[in-house]
């Protein structure tokens, strides 16, 4: 969580330097900002339209109250500021936090490259993509023991460098240690399908238990680590069918339940801003999965039922 926040703050800092004319603090009495804080006392470009909840000073200058709604925040100690106060960020709270940044900054201008696209047009490996996760580029013609593959961060945390810990619903609930029966089933499934279902250092399910990070063709096809579903392009990601009759029914039902949750919730204001996608997404084409999810084969590699 802290890393995400730091990343957001860092990104915001980078963003503002590129789109807002920076100005030196004219008044040495101006409040001191914490490390990695967005710059203040700069003029915001005319092209940027801010919402009414984010007032600017004269000469369109960005001040504390532009972003923060807490009274006299500039007189408070950094540690005393309640970051969970709904007034901490004007118009907030925000989920995700980057929604606040995009009041001024264009999200598309800051999107990172898809490093899972690892092959160029000639089928050659793009070494830069490898080095995002690996300490060194591996030789495709050699076979390696798992311990020989040096990752920059342990595999169970590596994905969080770019993705949220919970990029889809039910992801966190899966990151648990399988019990004895399930572990046995996973081993049998891996053998039956000739795939790998790797677990983390402490024996828990992790992102790469179900997902493979490598584009088809990067690892030699005969190796279990290479086997995956690949009827969609990596650059496009998983494709969903449109106009499934269940979409509206599920969306309506879940919306009602969400409203009931909001009525009970103590974080009502926060929840109002949540826009969960509760539609039924029927998979049409899939990629970067070790087995097909669209017919449940992937799920049944770990789950079994008595009846």
């Amino acid at each position, binding site marked *: 969580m802290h890393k995400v926040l730091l990343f957001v703050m860092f990104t915001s800092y980078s963003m503002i330097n590129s789109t807002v004319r920076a100005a030196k603090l004219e008044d040495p009495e101006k409040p001191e900002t914490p490390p990695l804080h967005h710059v203040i006392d700069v003029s915001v470009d005319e092209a940027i339209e801010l919402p009414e909840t984010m007032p600017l000073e004269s000469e369109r200058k960005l001040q504390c109250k532009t972003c923060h709604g807490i009274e006299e925040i500039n007189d408070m100690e950094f540690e005393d500021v309640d970051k969970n106060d709904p007034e901490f960020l004007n118009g907030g709270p925000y989920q995700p936090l980057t929604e606040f940044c995009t009041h001024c900054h264009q999200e598309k201008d800051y999107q990172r490259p898809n490093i899972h696209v690892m092959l160029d047009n000639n089928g050659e490996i793009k070494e830069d993509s490898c080095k995002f996760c690996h300490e060194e580029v591996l030789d495709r013609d050699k076979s390696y023991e798992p311990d020989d593959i040096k990752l920059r961060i342990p595999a169970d945390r590596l994905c969080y460098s770019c993705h949220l810990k919970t990029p889809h619903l039910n992801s966190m609930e899966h990151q648990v240690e399988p019990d004895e029966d399930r572990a046995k089933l996973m081993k049998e499934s891996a053998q039956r399908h000739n795939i790998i279902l790797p677990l983390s250092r402490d024996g828990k399910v992790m992102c790469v238990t179900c997902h493979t990070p490598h584009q088809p063709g990067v690892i030699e096809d005969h190796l279990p680590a290479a086997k995956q579903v690949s009827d969609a392009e990596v650059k496009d990601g998983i494709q969903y069918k449109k106009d499934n009759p269940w979409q509206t029914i599920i969306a309506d039902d879940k919306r009602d339940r969400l409203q009931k949750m909001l009525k009970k919730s103590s974080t009502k204001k926060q929840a109002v801003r949540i826009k969960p996608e509760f539609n039924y997404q029927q998979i049409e084409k899939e990629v970067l999965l070790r087995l097909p999810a669209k017919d449940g084969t992937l799920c049944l590699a770990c789950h079994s039922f008595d*009846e």
Partner: protein
Amino acid sequence: MRRTLKFFSIMAMVLTAYLCMAADTATKSAEPEKQKKWWEKRYERADIKFPHNAHIGIVDQEGDACMLCHSFNKNKVTDEKTLKQLTTISNEPLKAICHDCHVTELRGPWRCVLCHDDREKIWPDSHNYNYIDHHGEDARHDETTCNECHIDRSYCTDCHMKRDTTGEDYHPPGYRTLHGIEARAISFNCARCHNSFYCINCHDSR
């Protein structure tokens, strides 16, 4: 002297052991009981039964998969408390999906008790108070509401169309001769099954 020392050392050991046990018990009782996650509790739930294996064939045939009920939709919420609530919502069984096959189209077994272990958990509040005596008004007003659960019409006809009214379940033999006594004494009992036209048909015929 040595015996006294031995006695005190044994007592000290016993006392230490007792204190350790007491401290351990206190620590254990102070620790809050670990709450089970929803997926750990799902096998304890008996209110809705969903036989997964029985559905694999039809789900495959329909082109749907596990994600029809277990959402893996994209998520941007990072607040753990809120996400937990959203996940619960995303995993709650969806009546419309189950009932589409089992109630609307009757493509699957439709007896409520196959999935719901206790009818009192799913019936409306109105059913809690002697509803058998008052259901007629609702049924006449909107029969379709009744049909949502009482799919089999025998639920109605078992009582309403029963013809062995001379049997002991209803009236004892010779009741036609004696019915006037009960009708005068407890007419409410007659009205449970008979409306006034039932009486008028005979008593007011000229």
